């Protein structure tokens, strides 16, 4: 009796083991799902091959996509559905890659054709000088942009959208107790002049700010002092500069007792590069 029960237990145990092992290694995808994936992969390849505009530029990688598709079909025939799904997915991704590679080549060739057309026109043109002049102007603009960017990086300007900002504390630019520009203050202002001399038509705004209520209109006086320096020494056209005195309406720090760091007693220079100078 005991022997019989023991054998039955062993049989059930083995059966359970068998069931578990089959469940562990069983494919997660159904045959129908995999068939759809294979159809989609085949469709992608077919569409790419039938695209008239891209037919000439089909890359070698397309054959890799086709190979994956074949492997997907074979795996499905062997009832290895997860592998079939995997190969179908790889085929689909690879044919997308092939599409982009073909489009890339198409644009490369079209660009070369455009270049040839441009230079042929230039060679045939009676007005060659004008066309060369255009090229020179374009190169000059590129050089100017590079110089402006270099000068801006050198001066430590902040950029917010199209507007450039340069903030200077009173202690950095004015002689203590006055609003005359100090020797140390000339250094950052000269950097601003370097940039503004490159951008002839820039509209500049100079803001004066104070830390206390501005009954004596000191913020205006400070802004005007900076404007005067830019016009007199920098040769910046006066009409391009506007000044605003905000008093203590726009503080940037709450605790003025801190010695280092930003200060409410400051001058801020704003400007924007006009479109035609970019």
């Amino acid at each position, binding site marked *: 009796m005991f022997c019989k029960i023991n*054998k039955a237990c062993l049989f059930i145990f*083995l059966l359970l*083991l*068998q069931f578990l*092992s*089959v469940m*562990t*290694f*069983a494919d997660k995808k159904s045959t129908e799902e995999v068939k759809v994936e294979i159809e989609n992969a085949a469709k992608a390849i077919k569409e790419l091959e039938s695209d008239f505009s891209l037919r000439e530029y089909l890359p070698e990688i397309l054959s890799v996509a086709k190979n994956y598709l074949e492997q997907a079909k074979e795996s499905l025939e062997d009832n290895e559905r*997860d*592998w079939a799904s*995997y190969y179908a*997915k*790889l085929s689909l*991704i*690879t044919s*997308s*890659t092939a599409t*982009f*590679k073909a*489009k*890339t*080549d198409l*644009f*490369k060739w*079209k*660009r070369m054709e*455009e*270049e040839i057309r*441009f230079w042929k026109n230039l060679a045939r043109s009676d007005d060659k000088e004008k066309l060369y002049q255009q090229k020179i102007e374009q190169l000059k603009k590129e050089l100017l942009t590079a110089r402006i960017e270099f000068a801006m990086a050198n001066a430590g300007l902040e950029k917010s959208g199209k507007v450039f900002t340069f903030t200077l504390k009173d202690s950095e630019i004015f002689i203590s107790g006055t609003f005359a520009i100090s020797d140390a203050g000339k250094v950052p202002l000269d950097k601003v002049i370097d940039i503004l001399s490159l951008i002839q038509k820039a509209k500049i705004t100079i803001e004066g700010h104070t830390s206390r209520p501005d009954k004596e209109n000191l913020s205006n006086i400070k802004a005007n002092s900076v404007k005067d320096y830019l016009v007199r020494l920098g040769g910046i056209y006066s009409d391009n500069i506007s000044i605003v005195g905000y008093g203590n309406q726009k503080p940037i720090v709450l605790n003025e007792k801190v010695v280092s760091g930003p200060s409410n007693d400051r001058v801020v220079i704003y400007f924007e590069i006009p479109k035609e100078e970019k």
Partner: protein
Amino acid sequence: MKKLLFLFLFVLIFISTQISFAGKIKKNDAENALKEFQTKYELIDKKGIWDIAPQEKTFVKTLLEEIQKDLKEEEWEWIFQKSKTAFSYLLLIEAIAEFKEAEKLYEEISQK
């Protein structure tokens, strides 16, 4: 004797099932595929072209998360398949970036 024969047959069937369903992929294959994917991933990171293909970027990140889970469970077959799939997505992202660059250059010359 019959019982012995039955047991022998059972064991035979059990082993054949194990062989047919067992993974084809060894740990080494999976690790190589993962390495290949990681190298490409770092390259794409350096190029800074992720945002050019946001959908593919999401697929790759999801696969990466899944691979990390599979690594804990030592699911070598899944690690292999997912690494290869993610690698294919990275190739696609590179192709999209090249395409965008070619398109931009073409537009620039067309405006001349």
